[in-house]
């Protein structure tokens, strides 16, 4: 898989690149700001762009805006946005109306290479990736849905959280030590309890759950 890395700190560009290479990915270029990133994507057409949110010139949310542009203009390139802090608002904005090929992770999570690889695979295959910390906050703050969520069994809650993180049924099954079939059954049950229409595509699921949790 071919990836590009965009971060204004050289140290982090280096570090991320080394991790990615170690994990078996090919780093085809790095960029230090939004404009350089877009030029790089235009030229190299990677499978995924790993992008830091906070970049020059304004050091606010250049990364988010670049991500939106990349998704709009280069539909075959997925974007994995990295942030120093847990920002529920940014995650919700990023996923907006279309969670396809988009991911949001907190930076130190990528130190775990397995997590990094899983997220990249999810995003490059048209699915989504959402940091577990963000999901945890969303679930905790479910407010009006607290009652319904409390009605889920422990196993169902775990499946819901992993699903919101964008993982595939097989990945969920691997993590929980159950068969893929069982996972599918759980998911059907969850959607039924939440009263949300079921969907087979991973990214749509994420969207549905996000929409449900953030309402």
């Amino acid at each position, binding site marked *: 898989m071919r990836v590009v890395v965009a971060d204004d700190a050289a140290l982090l560009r280096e570090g991320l690149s080394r991790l990615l290479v170690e994990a078996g990915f090919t780093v085809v270029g790095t960029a230090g700001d939004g404009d350089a990133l877009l030029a790089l994507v235009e030229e190299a057409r990677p499978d995924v762009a790993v992008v830091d949110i*906070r970049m020059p010139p304004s*050091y606010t949310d250049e990364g988010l805006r670049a991500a939106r542009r990349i998704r709009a203009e280069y539909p075959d390139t997925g974007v994995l946005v990295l942030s120093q802090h847990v920002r529920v*608002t940014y995650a919700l904005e990023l996923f907006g109306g279309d969670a396809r090929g988009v991911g949001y992770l907190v930076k*130190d999570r990528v*130190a775990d290479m397995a997590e990094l690889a899983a997220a990249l695979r999810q995003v490059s295959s048209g699915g989504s990736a959402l940091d577990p910390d963000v999901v945890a906050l969303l679930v905790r703050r479910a407010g009006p849905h607290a009652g319904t969520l409390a009605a889920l069994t422990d196993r169902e809650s775990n499946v819901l959280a992993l699903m919101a993180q964008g993982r595939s049924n097989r990945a969920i099954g691997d993590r929980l030590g159950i068969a893929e079939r069982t996972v599918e059954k759980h998911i059907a049950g969850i959607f039924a309890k939440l009263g949300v229409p079921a969907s087979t595509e991973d990214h749509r699921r994420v969207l549905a759950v996000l929409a449900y949790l953030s309402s």
Partner: protein
Amino acid sequence: MGSVFAAFGAALTAVVLARGGGLGVLHVLLTPLVGWSFGVAGMLACLHRRWRRVGVLLLAVGFAWLVHLLDWTHVPVLVSVGAPLRNVYAAVFAHLLLAFPTGRLGSWWSRALVVAGYLDVVGVQVVATVLDGPGPATSWVRGDRSPAAVWYDVENAVGVLLAGLVMVTLVRRARSARGHPPAAVWTAAVVAFVALLANLLSAWFSPGLALVSWVAFLTGFAAVPFAFLASLLGLRLRRAGVAALIVRLSRVGDTAELRDALADALRDPSLELAFWVPDRGGYVDGQGREVTLPATGGERAGTLVERDGRRIGALFHDVALRDEPELVDAVVAAAGLALDNARLQAELRAQLAELRASRVRLVEAAATERRRIERNLHDGAQQRLVSVAFVLGLARSRLPGDPIAAGSALTEAQSGLAQALDELRRLSQGIHPGVLVERGLRVAIAELAWAAPVPTHVAWHAPDRLSEAVELTGYYMVAEALANAAKHARATSVRIRVSDQDGRATIAVSDDGVGGAHAERGTGLHGLTDRVEALGGRLTVLSPVGAGTTIQMEVSCG
């Protein structure tokens, strides 16, 4: 009342003059004169409404004195009626001295003295007279061994003692600020007392002088009532001083000079000025310092000063001024404008003092904050990083021989780093929240709501971005309020409301916890108050016990 006195007095005088009484001519002429003198002064005083009480006392002294004359009528019935009342005049005179110029006895001490005096002259006399039978008033001359002699001695001794106590009381009053009672009265009382004492002593030791000293006493005593009248008139004349006050006020420089001018006009050197500050709901002195009101019922009293229906302040003065309300009103009216100006100055000084204190607090808060950060860095992140270095060293040493152990050490190092990062994150949020710079207060509050330990609902009715200073202070206020709601208030839900109306932004955080929070307690909220006031805004804390807490900040934006 006056006519009763006149009739009684006239009748007695006529009888006495006719009979002669068996005493010297001077004696016969002067004795009734004293009574008349008091009576006339009393009648004159009664003409004026406010001096009525004093007038009654003067009349009473005159009456009591004339009762003396009953002795000289040599009519047995009258003599025996008058016998026990012989010395009542002394007790009534003491009453008058202690009650001047108001006519009322202020303290329990003066009342006790007067009651003791009456008991002494009437009670003891009754006992003695019953034992003795009607006789001349001079039964206390030595050598007379009648059984009642002892009682007369007792009466006199007690009388002298009480007279001494009255003098001491008057001396102490004179020393107190107002120099009351007035000098004329003072002198008269001293003269009378000294003469009476001299009379008693010379009667005991040298009867020859007795008559001389008695005449002296009579003369002095007859002048006393006019001294009283003069001082009452003097009180009236004081009001003319108000005109002088108005002239003086035009030259007054500061609050101290104003106080002096007013004190002189009111003849009360102990006068104090206090100014009303509506914001504080309390009184301050000329320098802006808080002032406590004097206790009621003591030697000091207060008079409210108002102008155009607004309360400006109060005068604290000797309680005797209560009886001259017209004088006080005239002085206050004349000085109204000057007092108002002085009040504004005092208010300003109070505000300046508060401002200075607030700035000091802000500077100290900044220094404390830096120390806190340094401590957090040292005890938190730095320590963790050091321990991670240790663990990495461990991993390195295990690497060649035991890669699995090395692997677990590395995992441990990663976890330590994650914690260090977490702490640094929280620290940098505390220094300056990144999201505020990136997206503004609205998103920042949304993030605080997501991360809050208690379910929080946000209602935003304002422009997306406010001024930087307002956003920063607002962020800290909301963060502090949320922390309090979780930590102290034991709340189960929080509402944050941000609204913007007529150029004023309002940020309010309400929880449904136990209430009882107070802006002064807990440096967190106090520091917030300083920051908000530094922006020209206001921080209010509404926290009735058991009914939740609302912390609200109002500031003008733009």
